[in-house]
């Protein structure tokens, strides 16, 4: 029991979340803005701790794995949570209530993701997953003045519960056919006992559960609706962090517990990846709402990430880790821009973005370059990420899959440019004023813009880090 210190990050996160709840009861309503700053500063502190612990490894209580792979994703969640918090200042104030609870929920959702990413055992994996899911339901419905927000909440809750029921059924079958819930032991049991009908069924059900969380087609249908209805910063967080968490857990379960069945499940992932990439990109084209557009684009991005899983290699896992990290900045960048715009104009329609470049060059530039990064155009970070993913499947001889992926990312340029066209070439509506963007948000915007460029031009440190964390995952 000597290694509790490995849990420092989780404990601090929980303490911060619970502390904010308590703080919300103590602080008078007029000073609630301070809670947002406390949340941001707290997250920054935990981020520093997590970065300090990036090399730590060990197993706590036999089933909770601290390793560089998990810590990499924790850093990712913390970064995303920080950006979301900064992004939320004005938005939450505009929604007008319960600020302390909002930030507390944000942080507790982050805690759920951390548990999810580090669980080496199915019970804690399931509780982490549900902590994340249920918290997100509440956050999605948080805009109480907006009926769409409540609808998003109940859709996410009911569909999430159904998918987690089938996921859970899968877990029970895997438990039954291996007699244990510890992922590593499951892997050993599967290796000795071999495939069995219940195990394969369990694999399919678990895959369905993960596919729901990562928005793989045809399990994706909740996401555009929920993304559109949820408050914009929450949407950003949901699209980035919960997806990354699900990928981390997916890698742990499938690579850790079921590597001997990979001939079986890789085919499923190929089918999902193809459907996801194609459908996500095609349906993004006719969208008129920026959040729905980003929802479909993020479905497509999930398809690219699935390619890393398909490759079933260190390179693939590293590519997933790297892409997930830069996806945080790319997608959060786009959502920060959308939030800034919503705070000013109260609209999410792409046509209202006309002439945005003249009203706020920073917001427009952030949106443009975030989208270019998502499209994978150099020198943006997305290019390197996509390159790694495609490389990982090419090294496994799935050349046709790489061609399909590249082709569809060409298609994606089209709809990304539609937004760019509106922002840069349209005329701002009569009497429109320059956008007011809070200083904190401006700083966050500039930072993520810079990071998108830096990760594109000099990605080596981060790619090395991602690859190393992938390597430690395979060789603990």
């Amino acid at each position, binding site marked *: 029991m000597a290694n509790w210190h490995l849990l420092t990050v989780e404990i601090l996160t929980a303490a911060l979340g619970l502390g904010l709840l308590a703080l919300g009861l103590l602080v008078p309503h007029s000073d609630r803005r301070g809670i947002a700053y406390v949340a941001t500063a707290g997250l920054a502190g935990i981020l520093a701790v997590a970065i300090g612990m990036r090399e730590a490894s060990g197993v706590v209580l036999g089933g909770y794995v601290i390793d560089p792979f998990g810590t990499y994703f924790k850093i990712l969640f913390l970064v995303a949570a920080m950006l979301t918090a900064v992004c939320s200042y004005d938005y939450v104030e505009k929604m007008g209530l319960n600020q302390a609870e909002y930030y507390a929920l944000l942080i507790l959702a982050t805690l759920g993701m951390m548990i999810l990413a580090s669980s080496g055992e199915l019970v804690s994996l399931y509780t982490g997953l*549900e902590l994340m899911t249920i918290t997100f339901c509440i956050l999605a419905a948080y805009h109480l003045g907006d009926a769409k927000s409540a*609808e998003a*909440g109940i859709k996410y809750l009911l569909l999430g519960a159904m998918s987690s*029921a089938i996921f859970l059924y899968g877990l*029970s079958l895997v438990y039954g056919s291996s007699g244990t819930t510890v992922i590593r032991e499951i892997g050993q049991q599967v290796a000795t006992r071999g495939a069995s009908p219940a195990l394969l069924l369990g694999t399919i059900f678990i895959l369905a559960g993960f596919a729901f969380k990562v928005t793989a087609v045809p399990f994706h249908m909740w996401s555009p609706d929920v993304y559109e209805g949820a408050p914009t910063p929450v949407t950003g967080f949901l699209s980035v962090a919960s997806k990354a968490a699900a990928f981390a857990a997916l890698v742990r379960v499938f690579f850790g517990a079921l590597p001997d069945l990979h001939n079986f499940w890789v085919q499923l992932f190929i089918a999902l990846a193809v459907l996801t990439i194609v459908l996500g990109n095609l349906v993004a084209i006719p969208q008129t709402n920026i959040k729905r557009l980003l929802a479909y684009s993020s479905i497509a991005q999930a398809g690219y990430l699935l390619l890393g899983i398909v490759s079933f290699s260190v390179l693939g896992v590293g590519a997933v880790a790297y892409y997930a990290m830069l996806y945080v900045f790319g997608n959060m960048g786009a959502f920060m821009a959308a939030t800034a715009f919503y705070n000013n104009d109260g609209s999410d329609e792409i046509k209202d973005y006309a002439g945005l470049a003249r009203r706020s060059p920073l917001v427009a530039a952030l949106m443009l370059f975030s989208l270019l990064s998502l499209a994978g155009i150099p020198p943006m970070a997305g290019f390197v990420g996509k390159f790694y993913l495609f490389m990982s499947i090419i090294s496994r001889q799935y050349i046709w899959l790489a061609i399909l992926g590249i082709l569809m990312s060409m298609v994606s340029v089209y709809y990304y440019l539609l937004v760019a066209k509106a922002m840069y070439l349209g005329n701002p509506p009569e009497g429109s004023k320059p956008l007011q963007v809070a200083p904190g948000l401006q700083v966050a915007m500039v930072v993520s813009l810079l990071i998108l460029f830096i990760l594109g031009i000099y990605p080596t440190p981060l790619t090395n880090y991602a690859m190393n964390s992938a390597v430690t995952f395979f060789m603990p």
Partner: protein
Amino acid sequence: MITLNHYLAVGGLLFCIGLFGALAKRNAIAVLMGIELMLNAVNINLVAFNHFLAPDQVTGQIFAIFVIVVAAAEVAVGLALVLNIYRRRLDSNIDDLDWLKW
């Protein structure tokens, strides 16, 4: 002799009945009930596996308790949402929740 498979069959039946309820009912509360049935089915599985295959540890039972806790949390949040929507639209039918589409 009642074997593991008997219990699993009960679990499977219960799961699919719950699934049918969740898929086919108009009322949001009924959908939640269906989901509860599905989770109960999983618990039967877990406990049966525990009892027949790995009786030396209580893993399956522990797992089931966590499932119950999660289910309770889900029901609480879900019903709160239903109430919220009902107050706004005077309706708890899921068919009518289609403002978000396409």
